[in-house]
């Protein structure tokens, strides 16, 4: 097996370190940001998150599947400017259908067991972001891209 590259390793480490991400969806031409709990696939090709079916973000994603998730390591201290890292995963989302839902649920709940009631409620939708690319920013200056899907 090919050794994992440095950027990929850093992205994996960052995703593993945080429970929450900022989801960016679009309401027409108006961007909209919200906080979600996420999980990721071992191959990093997809990220999972859940939302209530009556939330703005659900409506936005229903109308426009393009979305991004931002995960960062800020601690709100001056040291962040030297140490914080952020990764943006961009791609298309799709609601997880009944088929295959159990497997995705299992992965999601392994990361967030306390959200079992929320994510199993019929009023909650589970989304999967198929990641096109990751943009990793370190020390606010060092920027790398990890392309997951070509063309």
């Amino acid at each position, binding site marked *: 097996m090919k050794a994992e590259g440095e950027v990929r390793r850093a992205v994996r480490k960052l995703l593993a370190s945080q429970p929450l991400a900022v989801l960016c969806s679009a309401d027409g031409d108006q961007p909209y940001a919200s906080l979600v709990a996420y999980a990721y696939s071992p191959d990093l090709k997809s990220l999972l998150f859940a939302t209530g079916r009556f939330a703005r973000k659900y409506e936005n994603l229903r109308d426009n599947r393009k979305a991004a998730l931002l995960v960062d390591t800020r601690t709100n201290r001056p040291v962040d400017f030297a140490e914080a890292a952020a990764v943006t995963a961009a791609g298309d989302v799709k609601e997880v259908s009944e088929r295959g839902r159990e497997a995705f649920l299992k992965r999601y709940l392994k990361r967030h067991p*306390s959200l079992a009631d929320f994510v199993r*409620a*019929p*009023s909650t939708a589970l989304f999967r972001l198929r990641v096109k690319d990751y943009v990793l920013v370190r020390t606010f200056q060092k920027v790398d891209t990890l392309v997951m899907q070509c063309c």
Partner: protein
Amino acid sequence: MKYWLDFSEIASGDLFEVGGKGFALGELARQGFPVPGGLALTVSAYRHFLRETGLEGRIVRELGRKPLKEMRWEEIWDAALRIRHLFASTEIPAGLARELRAAVGEKFGRRPVVVRSSAPGEDSADRSFAGLHESFVNVRGTEKILEKIVLVWASLWSDRALLYRRELKLDPAGSAMAVAVQEMVNGERSGVAFTVSPENDDRGLIEAVWGLNEGLVDGTVGPDHWVLDRATGRVISHTPAQREWRVGTVLKELDPRQADQPPLDDKRLKMVFDLFRPLEEYLGGPADFEWTFKGTRLCLLQCRPITAGRGEKVEPGERLWERDDRRPWYLNLQRSFANLKKLRERIEGELIPEMEKEAKRLDGVRLDRLSDRELRAEIKNRSAIRDRWREVYWSEFIPFAHGIRLFGQVYNDAVRPEDPYEFMDLLASDGTEIAGRRKLLEELAGLIRNDPELDRKLERGESGPEDSRFEKGLEEFMDRFGELSCGVSQCALGREGIVAILREMAAQPAREKQKKNPGREADFLASFSGERREAAKEVLDLARASYRLRDEDNIHLSRIEGQLLKAEKEAERRGLRPRTPKRAAGKQKPGSDGGAERPRQLTGQPANPGMVRGRARVVRTPADLFKFKAGEVLVIDAIEPEMTFVVPLAGGIVERRGGMLVHGAIIAREYGLPCVTGVPEAVEKIPDGAEVTVDGYRGIVVIHSGEFSSNQG
């Protein structure tokens, strides 16, 4: 840190790991006192369970719906019930379970044990958690013991414990629970002892009963009482009890041979007395302790320093061990079955008949024949009567709701259902007055539904034929229920209001109540055998009475209130005084300045599952109920039973008052409507006519923007 320690292994640094009770038992064992052996499950075991299963976060989310200090106790009870259910339905992680099974199995085998809570850092001189958390006696077998350990962990989150911590300003998230599992000594004679009498520093007291101590501690069995000279152990006085009962695994009538004899002979009395001095030396002062005898083997069950109450007179029948328990009212929330049974007898046998008699007597007074002065006096008198009954309502009727709660716990422990409120389905009945009233309304609506000509007539404000079923039925309705809703509707709207609602109901297909699972009661009872099944039946019967009263209690009160209103109306008719404003269903908020702040999503308690999106009908005054249109979402401060007639029309319910036992939640469950209760300021924050979504799964109400109607208040 280890997940468990044998009592004999507990060392001086382990207090915060094994909790006060476990630590004390370990210390006593080490000091050579005759303590039954056992294991202390550490706080680390509890924390591991919470972390690995995700329960930690689920509890945070459950309690995060609303600040604890803003919750009514019913809401706290609901949260506690759900948390207990989470614990009971969560498996102990495999590694921990394996370790505990091995330790418990090896130590106790099939011998019975007592599983006790031992919360660390909570029992001190000024704050006692004694009795707040659960303990289980006579538990046998590894799996059963593990089951009870989980329930003891859960009791850290009981409503009483949450309320108590709220009062002490302790953060529930910072609390933890250790457990003491101890060999159970099936004592033949047991008791308590006080090394110093509260009345006289030179004397000590011993109290004893036949059987186990539980009967003595909860007051069911009266003890023999000895006063001893502290210096010599000489008996100064012995007051025999009226010996009738003993507690073994259950309460039983005492064998006549034992009834004739005191539980302690001189030899055993001396053995108990011989513990006085060493215990005082160990604790550094006077102590009270519990003990039991198996044959001639004396076991020390627990002991604690006496911190309060010395030098005070002992009242006859006073239970000394409760003397320093000056904790607040809610510690009595766990009402005993016997206590509730007595309350039921009083409510059904005395209070309700008295209320009915009083209402009837008042109804017999010819108000029109009273002089103005007499009428004023009559209003004053009726107002005092109403106040008196209101007090009875709060002090006796409301506490009786604990019957439902008691049954809920018994049901959930026995059946372990997926839905922690499944037990409510066994309680609903069609025999209540409110149910009768709804049924009559539904029948009348059915008559309109099947007769378009009648509907057209009613629309034009005409009546049906005088002797038609509809007119007779309507007359019967007004006769039977008119006075109840006087404060709500008919007095203001009369026939017109009722007809409007009936026509709206008739325009919709008849709404059926949720079918209940008929096998549920049998399944519940089948989980018990022998005399336990009889006890389960009794608890169910009590809960049904409690539920029925919950549905009807306001009706009885409304009858009295209706009589006061009648007198006030008479005064108003004569121009004597302005009519007192009727109770409003919600508080009116001052007019909005059109500012930009607008709530989008409100959080409450999930009171019945389901989702619905519809127009909000915000009920602020009783007359608003009569504007109700089918499919609307009823948004209200607090539904009273007499308002529930609009529920069959509603698409969903949102209520400010929280709890699973509020009328809104009960009836939503009966009709299968999505319902969210405990939404702070629901009436103020949801504009009338707004499009809303009620998410009864998660306890959320979404106010969709840009769809407000013009009639918003």
